[in-house]
C-alpha cells in the first residue's frame, strides 16, 4: 500500500519527486557557477529560478504521472492503460485528483481549479478596494499594493478567464463534434496540470516579495528594477502559456479531424467555430508572450540587455512583443464567450442564430484583424508617431465584425420565444455590458481620446466592462447552461437569478463610476490619490464588496446543486446540438455509436428538422421538459 502510494502515479510520488527534481536543478546551477569561477551560492535569483520554477514543477508533473505513458512507451515497457482505459473517466471523486485523460473529467478539473483562482483573485481585488476606499490609506505599503493589483490581474487573466474557457470547451467541444474524446487525451491532461503550477507560482511570489510591475510587466522596470518576485511572474506566464498552446493545438486537431460524419464546417455549432478561431489565435500569438518573458527574465537573471538601453537594449521592444500577444489575448478571452452566447441565445430564444455564416466569418475577421491592432496599447508609448494612424484605423475597423455579432444576436432574440432562465439572463446582461465595453473601446481607439485617458481609471473601467461584463458573464452563462450536462443535476433557478441580479447591479455600481474618475484624471495603479476623488472611490469600494458577496450565492448554488440538485434529464433546454442527445452526464466514451450529422445545429421552428441522428435503439428518450 505504502509502496504503491510512494511509487505509483499520484500525489504521494509527487511529494518526493518535486523536491528531488528541485534539488537536481539546484545542484546543476551550483555546479555551473562553481565551474565558471563564481561564488556558487551567492546569487539567489538563478538558484530559485532553475531549482524552484523550472526543475521542481517538472518533478511534480512526473510525480503525479503526467509523463508515465510516454516514459514507459519510450523505455519499451508495457502500457496497459492504452488498452484498458484505466486512466480514463471518473468513477469516484478521487478520480478528479489524478491525471485523467477523459476530456469531461479534465473540463471539470479546469473549471473547479479556475474558480478557485477566480475567488483568490477576487479577494485580492477586495483588498485593493479596501486600500482605495480612502485617499491616504495605510493598510498596505506601496510595494504590497503594487503587488496586489499585479497578482490580481495575472490570476484573473492567465488562471481564470483563459483556462475557464478552455475548461468549458474541453467538456463541450468533443461532444458537440460527435467525438469520443479530444485528439490527444494525454496532452490534454498534461496541459491541465500545468495550470496549478502557474497559479501557485504567481501566488507564492508573495512570500519572496511579490512581483509588482503590473500584469503587463513592462521592461525595464520589471526586468531589472524589481525584486525576485518578477521572475515568478515571468515563469508563471510560461507555464500558463504552455498549457494554453497545448490545449489550442489539441482543439485544432480535434476540430479538423474528429468531426462526426456529416459535420461539415458549415454545420458546426458556433461554439466550435469560436474555439477553432480562438485556438488559431493562441497558437500564433502565445509564443510571443513566452518570448517577451524569457528575454525579460534573462535581463534579470543573466544580465543580458534585451530591454535595457545601457547595453544596447530597446525598452519599447518589450511592449511590441508583449502586445503582439496580449492584444490577440483580448480576443482569446472574448471569442469563446461569443460562442457560448450564440448557443445560449439561440436555445432560449427558440430561433436559429441569425446570419450563421456571417457570424462564423466575423470570427475569422476578428482573428485576422486582431493581429494588426497591437500598437493601440502604445499610442503614447513613444513609439514611431506615424504608426499611430494605421493602428487607429485597424482598431476602429475591428468594431465592424464585433458589431455584426451584436446585431445578429439582437436579431436572433427579435420575434423569438424568450425563456429567461439564468444562462439567458447572463447572455442578455453580456449583450448590454459588452456594448458599453465595446463602445469605450472605440473611444480608446481614437488616438486623441486615448492620449487623455490612457493609463487612467477609464482604462480600468473599460477592461472590466470587456473582461467582466463580457468574458465573466459568458463564463457564468456557460457554467449554468452546461451544469446539468456536467453534473447530471439541475442548479437552483431562483438562486441563479438572484446571482445574476446581484452581479449585474454590483458590477455596474462598481465599474461605471471608474469611467468618470478616469476622464477626470485619476491615474491607475496608484496606492494614494488626491482627496478630490475620495467620494466616488468610497462608493466604488462599497459596491465592490457587494459584487464580491454575489459570488457566494453562486458558490452555494453550485455546491448544493451538485450534491442535492434535482436529477437532470438528457436535454433540459430542448437544444439541438449533439451534447444534449446523450445522457447527463454523458457516458465515458460519449457516444455508443458515432452520430450522423444531417443538418444545421440551430433549426428551431423548422418542422421535423434534426441536427444529428443517433442509432435509433440507443437514443435516450427525449423527455418533454418545460423550459
Amino acid at each position, binding site marked *: 500500500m505504502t509502496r504503491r502510494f510512494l511509487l505509483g502515479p499520484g500525489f504521494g510520488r509527487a511529494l518526493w519527486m518535486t523536491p528531488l527534481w528541485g534539488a537536481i536543478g539546484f545542484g546543476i546551477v551550483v555546479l555551473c557557477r562553481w565551474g565558471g569561477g563564481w561564488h556558487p551560492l551567492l546569487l539567489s535569483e538563478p538558484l530559485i529560478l532553475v531549482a524552484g520554477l523550472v526543475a521542481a514543477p517538472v518533478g511534480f508533473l512526473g510525480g503525479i504521472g503526467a509523463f508515465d505513458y510516454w516514459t514507459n512507451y519510450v523505455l519499451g515497457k508495457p502500457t496497459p492503460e492504452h488498452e484498458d482505459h484505466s486512466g480514463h473517466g471518473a468513477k469516484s471523486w478521487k478520480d478528479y485528483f489524478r491525471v485523467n485523460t477523459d476530456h469531461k473529467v479534465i473540463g471539470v478539473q479546469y473549471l473547479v481549479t479556475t474558480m478557485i483562482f477566480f475567488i483568490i483573485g477576487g479577494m485580492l481585488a477586495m483588498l485593493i478596494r479596501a486600500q482605495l476606499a480612502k485617499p491616504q490609506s495605510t493598510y498596505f505599503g506601496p510595494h504590497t499594493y503594487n503587488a496586489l493589483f499585479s497578482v490580481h490581474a495575472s490570476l484573473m487573466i492567465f488562471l481564470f478567464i483563459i483556462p475557464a474557457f478552455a475548461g468549458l470547451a474541453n467538456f463541450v467541444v468533443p461532444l458537440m463534434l460527435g467525438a469520443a474524446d479530444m485528439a490527444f487525451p494525454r496532452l490534454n491532461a498534461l496541459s491541465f496540470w500545468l495550470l496549478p503550477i502557474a497559479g501557485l507560482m504567481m501566488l507564492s511570489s508573495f512570500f519572496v516579495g511579490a512581483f509588482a510591475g503590473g500584469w503587463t510587466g513592462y521592461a525595464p522596470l520589471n526586468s531589472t*528594477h524589481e525584486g525576485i518576485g518578477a521572475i515568478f511572474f515571468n515563469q508563471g506566464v510560461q507555464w500558463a502559456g504552455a498549457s494554453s498552446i497545448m490545449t489550442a493545438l489539441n482543439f485544432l486537431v480535434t476540430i479538423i479531424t474528429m468531426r462526426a460524419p456529416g459535420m461539415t464546417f458549415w454545420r458546426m455549432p458556433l461554439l466550435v467555430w469560436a474555439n477553432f478561431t480562438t485556438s488559431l489565435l493562441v497558437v500564433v500569438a502565445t509564443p510571443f508572450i513566452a518570448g517577451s518573458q524569457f528575454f525579460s527574465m534573462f535581463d534579470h537573471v543573466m544580465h543580458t540587455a534585451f530591454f535595457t538601453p545601457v547595453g544596447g537594449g530597446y*525598452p*519599447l521592444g518589450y511592449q511590441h512583443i508583449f502586445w503582439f500577444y496580449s492584444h490577440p489575448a483580448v480576443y482569446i478571452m472574448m471569442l469563446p464567450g461569443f460562442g457560448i452566447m450564440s448557443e445560449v441565445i439561440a436555445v432560449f430564444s427558440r430561433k436559429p442564430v441569425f446570419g450563421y455564416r456571417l457570424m462564423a466569418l466575423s470570427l475569422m475577421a476578428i482573428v485576422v484583424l486582431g493581429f494588426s491592432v497591437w500598437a493601440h496599447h502604445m499610442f503614447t508609448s513613444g513609439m514611431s508617431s506615424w504608426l499611430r494612424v494605421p493602428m487607429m484605423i485597424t482598431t476602429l475597423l475591428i468594431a465592424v465584425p464585433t458589431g455584426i455579432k451584436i446585431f445578429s444576436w439582437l436579431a436572433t432574440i427579435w420575434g423569438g420565444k424568450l425563456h429567461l432562465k439564468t444562462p439567458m439572463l447572463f447572455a442578455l446582461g453580456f449583450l448590454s455590458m459588452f456594448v458599453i465595453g465595446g463602445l469605450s473601446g472605440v473611444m480608446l481607439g481614437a488616438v486623441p481620446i486615448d492620449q487623455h485617458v490612457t*493609463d487612467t481609471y477609464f482604462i480600468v473601467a473599460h477592461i472590466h466592462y470587456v473582461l467582466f461584463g463580457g468574458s465573466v458573464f459568458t463564463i457564468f452563462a456557460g457554467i449554468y447552461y452546461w451544469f446539468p450536462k456536467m453534473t447530471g443535476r439541475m442548479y437552483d433557478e431562483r438562486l441563479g437569478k438572484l446571482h445574476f441580479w446581484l452581479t449585474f447591479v454590483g458590477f455596474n455600481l462598481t465599474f461605471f463610476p471608474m469611467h468618470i474618475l478616469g476622464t477626470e484624471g485619476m491615474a491607475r495603479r496608484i496606492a494614494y490619490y488626491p482627496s478630490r476623488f475620495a467620494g466616488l472611490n468610497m462608493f466604488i469600494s462599497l459596491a465592490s464588496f457587494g459584487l464580491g458577496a454575489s459570488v457566494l450565492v453562486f458558490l452555494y448554488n453550485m455546491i448544493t446543486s451538485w450534491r442535492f440538485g434535482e436529477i437532470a434529464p438528457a436535454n433540459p433546454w430542448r437544444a439541438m446540438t449533439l451534447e444534449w442527445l446523450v445522457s447527463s452526464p454523458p457516458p465515458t466514451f460519449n457516444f455508443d455509436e458515432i452520430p450522423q450529422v444531417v443538418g444545421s445545429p440551430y433549426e428551431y421552428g423548422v418542422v421535423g428538422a434534426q441536427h444529428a441522428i443517433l442509432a435509433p435503439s440507443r437514443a435516450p428518450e427525449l423527455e418533454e421538459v418545460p423550459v
Partner: protein
Amino acid sequence: MRRGSIVALLGIGLVAGGVATAVALIPTWLPVDASRQAGRIDFVFWFVIAICIALFAVVVAVIVYSVLRFRAAPDDLEDGPPVHGHTGLEITWTAIPFVLVTAIAIVSGIVLSQNDAQGADTLRVNVQAQQFEFTFSYPSAGNATSPVLRLPVNRSVEFDMRSLDVIHAFFVPQFREQEDIVPGLVTHLHITPDRIGTYPFICNELCGLGHSLMRTEVIVMPDKAFNRWLAQQKAGTT
C-alpha cells in the same frame, strides 16, 4: 412590423438615450481644458460619445422591447419563427458601423495632425524623469532647472523628454495629451497652454515603489511673468 411596436421601440430607445445623455452631461467628466490641444481632443471625445449614445440606445431598446414583448410562458413549448438571416439587414449593420468608424478615424486623424503642428516661436523644455521625481530645464535660459514646470500662456511648447532609469509618463489632465518618457529614447510632446493656473503634473506609467507619489505641478503664467522668472533662473545658473 406593426406600427405600435415601432412606437414602443422608439420610446424605449429615446428613454435609454435620454438616460445615457444625462449620464454624459450631469457629472463633470473632463477637467478644465488648459491647452489648445485640449479643446480639439474634447471635441473628438464628445463626437464619439454622441455616436456611442445612439448605438447604446438602439441595443438597449431592442433588448428591453424583446424581453417585454417576446417573453414566452414557461409552459409554452413552441419555437419562434425559423428566420435564418436577412442579407439586406446584414449588409446594413456592416455598412453603418463602417461609416461611423471611418468618420471617427477621419476626425481623429485631423485633430492629431493639428495638435502635432508646432506654432512659430516654440519654447523648448527638457523633461528629465527618474525614480521618483521630475526635473525641468530650459535650454533658452542656460539649462536652468526647476522641480516645478512653469510655462508661458499661449505659446507653443515642445518637450524633449528623457528618463534615467525606467519608463515614466508626462500627464497633465488639464492639457489632455500624455506621452511616456522612455530610457534610451528622447520622446516628444507638443502643447500650447492657454489657461493661466496651477495644475497637477503626474507620472502616469507604473515606475516602482514611489509611483503614486511621483507628482509635481505645472504653473501656467502670463508671458511677462514667465520671462521675468526665466531671466532670474538664468541669472541664478551663471
